Each structure stands twice: as C-alpha cells, then as structure tokens.
C-alpha cells in the first residue's frame, strides 16, 4: 500500500505548471543552495534543472553527513576498527571513505571486524548478542540521525550494557548555514533539508532568516515539492522579501519532533566541531554528555591526535560551500571515481561528486 497523495506531488502536469510559474516569476539571476544531499540526488533524478530558466543556478551545500565528516574522525574510525576485541558498526556510506592511510573497507579486507548496519539499533543488538566483544558505532549524521543514536544510548543505559560505545561525530545544520553565510559565498536562497527540519522544526531557521535577510524554503523530496520551494524562493527574491516558507508542512511542524529533540538534548552537549572543507564551526557538533560518558568511544579508547589534512588535490571544500561544481575539479572522473574515490563527496550516495558522476550526462544546462 502506498501513500495516496504521493502521486500528486509527482504529477508531471503540476510540475509543468510550477516550472512555468517559476519562469514567469524569475526576472534576475538567482543562486539557490540545496542544503541536503537527498535533494541533490532528487534534483538530478527528476531532471529539475531542465525545468528551470537559465537564470536559476542550483548549487549543492554541506548537507551530506559523510562528506562533511572530518579527516580526523575518519582516521579515528579506522583506528577503532583496529582495536583488539572491537566490532565496528557503521552505516554503509562510510566504508569506502579514504582515511589518511586506509579505509574501513580495507580494514575489513584485512580481517578486522567491521559491520555495516542499517540503524544504530542494530549495533545495540550486536552488543547484546556479543557480550565479550566491544561494539563501537560510528555516529555520523545530522539532527535526523543524532536522536536515533541518542535513543540507543539511553536504551544501552537502561539495559546496563557495558560493551556498547558510540563515537559521536554528529553535526547540526543551522550553525553550518550561519558559518556559510559569513563566508564569501554567493547564495540568494536556501532550500532547507526536509528531514533535518522534521526534527528541529521550521522555527529553528528563523534566526538565520532574520540575521542574513535571506529567502528560505523547507522542501520535501518529490519533484513538485522541490519546484514549489523554488517558486517561493524566486517570488521572495523578486519581491525583495526574506521569509521562511514551509512547503513540506505535511511532515515538518513549526516546533519539530519534540520527543526526538528531548532525547538529543538529554544525551548530547553542543560543542565546536570541525567540518571537512568548512573548518571549525562553533556549537555545531554533538558530544556525549558526561552522564553517559561510559558509552563515549572517544573517551573509552585511546586515539592518536590528528595527523593530516584532507586528501591532496580534492576540492571538497569548494564543492561543499557551493563555490564550485564537481566538473570544475581537476581530479573529477580522472583520478577520482566512485570505485576509486579521493574524497568522501565521491563516495556517499548523497555526495555531490557522486551525484554528478552518476547523472552528469543528463545535464544539458550550461553553468
């Protein structure tokens, strides 16, 4: 059984009308950043660019969690996989991300116990099933994922599990957008990530809208969701307005998912975090609170200090800030491909470079 209203959000006739309205409304060049990697993929898959006037440029932002994971964090995951008695549990997208010297996939090939899980809850189950092993979960993700990991830490606490650990590399979106606006980027409007917004709520972006007077729209993932959000962004810009429009109100409320936010606040503290390509952003990371520190892998295991910068020649930073698109990277498709990636943007299914690699043939628009 499927959701009955979905068809309308995909209806090509409606899409045509929306794209006509966008063309009609758009009077001047506009750069819109889609913050979320899932939007990037949906824009390609649905051929959204071809439905837009030349004046509108869509650039991808820092919204693929694997892509913004710092090199030190990737290296730490690899170190953790090498520890005695450890089973490292991770989302599949992290497996092929190149660390300074290795990757989790290479570690697994060398006989380390690295297990791909679909949910942090699977890692918790592993811990209960393997009392003699230490299960370490790689906590990567934004506000959508952090509560799911937080809920697992609370459950591990309740069950009194002593062999479940989380390395928290979680990051939060609003501080990153604030940092992005303070850099020398040209962004005329933000398409906000649908599922991060489900948790934090639409109102979480109001300070950003106010501070930078920038048009913002929360969008769902169907083609007409995306087009409707672009339409409101264009209309705002042409009218000289800057508002927050919620075009995904069927899933996103003004206050978000209160329960999930409470879990997040109960388990994590806000800390400064280092983002790949963006640097350290104040208050944009989540570390495990003292009360639950026995589950904190960064404290339970000894890890070496940071040793290296991002891979040489990879321009992920410029890609993640919307300054460049992948075809402008000299390594793109030459030294960097999904099977032999140089940076995480080419690895993750939500990564901008991977999305371009997969769908670039479909782009007809000149940038």
């Amino acid at each position, binding site marked *: 059984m499927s*959701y009955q209203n979905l068809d309308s959000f995909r209806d090509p006739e*409606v899409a045509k009308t929306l794209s006509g*309205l966008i063309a009609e409304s758009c009077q001047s060049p506009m750069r819109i950043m889609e913050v979320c990697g899932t939007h990037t993929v949906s824009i390609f898959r649905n051929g959204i660019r071809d439905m837009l006037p030349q004046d509108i440029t869509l650039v991808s932002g820092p919204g693929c969690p694997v892509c913004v994971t710092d090199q030190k964090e990737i290296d730490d995951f690899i170190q953790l996989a090498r520890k005695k008695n450890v089973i490292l549990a991770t989302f599949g997208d992290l497996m092929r991300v190149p660390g300074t010297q290795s990757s989790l996939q290479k570690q697994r090939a060398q006989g380390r116990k690295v297990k791909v899980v*679909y*949910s942090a809850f699977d890692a918790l189950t592993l811990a209960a099933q393997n009392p003699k092993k230490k299960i370490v979960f790689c906590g990567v993700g934004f506000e959508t994922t952090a*509560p799911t990991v937080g*809920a697992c830490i609370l459950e591990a606490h309740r069950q009194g599990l002593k062999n479940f650990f989380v390395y928290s590399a979680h990051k939060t979106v609003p501080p990153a957008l604030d940092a992005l606006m303070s850099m020398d980027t040209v962004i005329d409007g933000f398409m906000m990530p649908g599922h991060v917004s489900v948790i934090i709520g639409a109102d979480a972006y109001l300070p950003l809208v106010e501070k930078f007077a920038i048009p913002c729209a929360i969008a769902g993932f169907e083609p007409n969701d995306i087009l409707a959000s672009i339409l409101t962004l264009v209309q705002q810009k042409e009218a000289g307005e800057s508002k927050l429009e919620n075009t995904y*109100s069927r899933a996103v409320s003004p206050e978000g*998912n209160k329960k*999930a936010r409470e879990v997040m606040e109960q388990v994590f503290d806000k800390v400064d975090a280092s983002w790949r390509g963006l640097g350290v952003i104040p208050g944009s990371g989540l570390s495990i609170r003292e009360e639950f520190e026995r589950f904190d892998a960064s404290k339970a295991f000894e890890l070496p200090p940071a040793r290296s910068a991002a891979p040489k020649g990879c321009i992920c930073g410029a890609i993640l800030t919307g300054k460049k698109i992948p075809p402008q990277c000299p390594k793109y498709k030459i030294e960097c491909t999904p099977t032999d990636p140089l940076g995480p943007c080419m690895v993750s299914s939500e990564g901008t470079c991977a999305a371009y690699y997969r769908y670039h043939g479909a782009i007809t628009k000149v940038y």
Partner: protein
Amino acid sequence: MCLAIPSKIVDIQGVVGTIDLEGVTRTINMALLENARVGDYVLVHAGFAISVIDEAEAAQSLDLIRELAEASLAEG
C-alpha cells in the same frame, strides 16, 4: 539513510512498530514518536519513525498548488 517515502504503520507493540512500504513489511523503532497510531503514514530514518504525515497539511499544500495552477491558467 532516509526513506523519503511515507510508510503505513500496520502494528505497534510497545516501541516496536511494523510498517508496510509498498507490500514489504519491516519492523521499526517508535521510541522517537509520540502519538502515532496504526494506519498513520510515517517517515522512517535509520530504523526509527521520525514523523507522522499530516494528511490535512498534505491536502492543503496540494490545494495551494492547484490554486496557483488555476490562477496561471486564468491569466494565460
């Protein structure tokens, strides 16, 4: 990691929910969602239900889009 397609809840037992997504059933964790009921459509992320789809809001967005379309037809 995120299923953008809403799935229908067919059963809830404590924090364990069962969803039906186009004929495939799967168990999910309901710990992050208050007030979800059997029959609701939910968004699922990394094994957890994170949001109930609000049918009234969905219908309203569609009405809005339809109104826009009609207005543009009337003008054109």
